[in-house]
């Protein structure tokens, strides 16, 4: 044990020395959960981020300082302050949990440090509580789900039963879907919000949904809950009569393997699908697979694009906090997920949303894109950048 610890400490010390010896010009704080329930997402984002730096041949131009947010607001807040006040980073990248984003928002805004949000989707962050210093390259909860409401109504679905975990993101996802779905003539005939992070057995809710006999069920679940939900939905025999739709996180490439055949036929919407047939994406997927031996998920792309926007900003000559923040909101390029622009009105990403079905591909599962909604842009919702 002692030996192992010494070796580990030695390796870490050596690694940190190497980073310091490089001629780095921009210091970036990576604030991601590396322990706890969200550690898997943190790792995907980190991998994507590092890959983009290496691909651009600019790994030496950035010094990375990593901190574990544990996806807990108090911890995330303490670590954000450490990065900004002690490490003097030029930009902070990361944040998986919306609660952590809510916690650090005022601090980031007040200390005028650019923050590139690599996951957290709460609508307010680029809405009523937006900030000149907070740029989001991932998605907003409304952005991913709003197009799906319209799409489903257009494809003949009339009555929907909705389900999501009972917390802010769950409500925002379902609300956005409901608004566009009802506007297009559909009807949400019932909804259940399950205790967040405590629900493992969806049986009681599935039985309720079935009894309501809707045309379809629309849900938002992510991570372990998504796996449990998809499998249980199938085992109750609901999938045959009532097709399952949802936010694309439900059948993310990160989890779909664990879901197995139960995920076949589930149709969802998301801002990135690994089977997207564009040269940019094919090159990205091939490079990612070669490096990590697994297909990239939307989280990996979010990490990748976080680095890309930063690289674009630095390439455009931005140096220091204020200049980087300024340059970030002008970034625009075509990447793995298609055209990507930062909306100058809200600092949220403008991107395509893809509707995809999970289908069998031999023994494995893959994603078949069945619809594309181009350049989805959120309304400012009270956002004034200044």
């Amino acid at each position, binding site marked *: 044990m002692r030996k192992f610890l010494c070796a580990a400490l030695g390796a870490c010390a050596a690694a940190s020395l190497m980073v310091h010896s490089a001629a780095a010009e921009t210091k970036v704080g990576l604030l991601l959960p590396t322990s*706890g*329930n969200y*550690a*898997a997402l943190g*790792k995907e984002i980190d991998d994507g981020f590092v890959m983009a730096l290496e691909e651009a041949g600019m790994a030496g131009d950035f010094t990375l300082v990593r901190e574990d947010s544990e996806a807990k607001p108090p911890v995330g807040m303490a670590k954000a302050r450490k990065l900004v006040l002690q490490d003097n980073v030029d930009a902070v990248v990361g944040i998986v949990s919306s609660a952590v984003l809510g916690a650090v928002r005022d601090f980031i805004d007040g200390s005028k440090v650019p923050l590139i949000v690599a996951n957290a989707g709460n609508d307010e962050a680029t809405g009523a509580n937006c900030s000149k210093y907070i740029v989001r390259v991932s998605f907003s909860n409304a952005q991913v789900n709003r197009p799906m409401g319209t799409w489903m109504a257009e494809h003949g679905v009339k009555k929907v039963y909705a389900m999501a975990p*009972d917390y802010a993101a769950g409500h925002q996802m379902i609300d956005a879907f409901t608004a566009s779905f009802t506007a297009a003539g559909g009807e949400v005939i019932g909804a*259940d*919000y*399950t*205790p967040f*992070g*405590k629900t*493992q*057995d969806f*049986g*009681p*809710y599935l*039985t*309720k949904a079935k*009894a*309501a006999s809707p045309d379809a069920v629309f849900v938002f679940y992510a*991570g*372990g809950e998504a*796996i*449990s939900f998809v*499998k*249980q939905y199938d*085992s*109750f*025999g609901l999938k045959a009569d009532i097709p399952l739709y949802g936010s694309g996180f439900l059948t993310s490439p*990160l*989890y779909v*393997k*664990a*879901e*197995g*055949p139960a995920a076949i036929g589930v149709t969802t919407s998301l801002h990135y699908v690994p089977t997207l047939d564009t040269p940019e994406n094919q090159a990205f997927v091939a490079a990612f697979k070669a490096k990590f031996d697994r297909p990239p998920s939307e989280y990996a792309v979010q990490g990748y694009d976080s680095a890309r926007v930063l690289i674009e900003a630095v390439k455009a000559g931005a140096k220091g906090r204020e200049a980087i923040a300024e340059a970030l909101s002008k970034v625009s390029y075509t990447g793995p997920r298609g055209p990507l622009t930062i909306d100058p009105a809200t600092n949220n990403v403008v991107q395509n949303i893809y509707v995809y079905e999970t289908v069998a591909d031999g023994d494995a599962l893959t994603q078949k894109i069945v619809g594309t909604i181009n350049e989805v842009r959120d309304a400012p919702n009270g956002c004034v950048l200044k």
Partner: protein
Amino acid sequence: MVASIDFWLTQFLNGLQLSMLLFLLSVGLTIIFGLMHFVNLAHGALYMVGAYAGVTAAASLGSFWLALAIAPIAVMAVGMFLYATVIRHMRRSGPMNQVLVTLGLIFVIVDLVRIIWGDIALGMEQPAILSGPVELLGVVYPAYRLFVIGVGAAVMLALSLVLSRTQIGAMVRAGVENDAMAACMGINVERLFFAVFCVGCALAGLGGAIAAPVFSATPSMATDILIPTLIVVVIGGLGSLRGAIAGSLIVGFIQTFGAVVLPGFASVLIYVLLAGVLIAKPSGLLPARG
């Protein structure tokens, strides 16, 4: 509210299924508590190890049934190792130290699982014969869930027979009632405890392996399951099989029907119940000793 009989029967089965899973976990814990006053908070971590062992065995051997047999043995082996290295030395050191040590064990086991199996949840396929729904009493219900109910009921029956009809059962009951007196009567309480501990670990492993196809295996399941299991044990009363049965059924049904009837209160209902029971009966409903 939907009032059809099918609906309530299905919900009844849902409640029963959850109860049986809780029973598999809590029965080992409660007997260990009762017999040796040992607070083993790492019991949930053993359940998690059972799930991962099941997933791995099923994937490498290609057989669900083999996995179901191997997982309890693997977890029992882990339990034996923990017993030899840590738990045996903590037998007489007071509940607070036991809490701290077993909390430490949770940290260690969870991180080892993360290192070995990664952070991403792993799935396990149901056997073909149990996948898909079947019809029972006019209700369409997942076959696998019926299987879970069946396993839980079988374990329940077996344990109650062993405890009430065999010599070893009598020894366990004597140990729970008064361990000092049992030792005076020539029962090797230490060895008895070890045996019970092993069975408890095996049942936790079985629970984990059975749960994996329904919930998938994740590192967070160690702590997620801990509180519900403790609630079952405490509501039922320490050390008694009847208590574990009653506790599991109460918690399982409250969770299920709470979700249906009072969806907004589903998460708080169980705590209200726990507080209510303890205020009315400070030693749980059916404690082993009066």
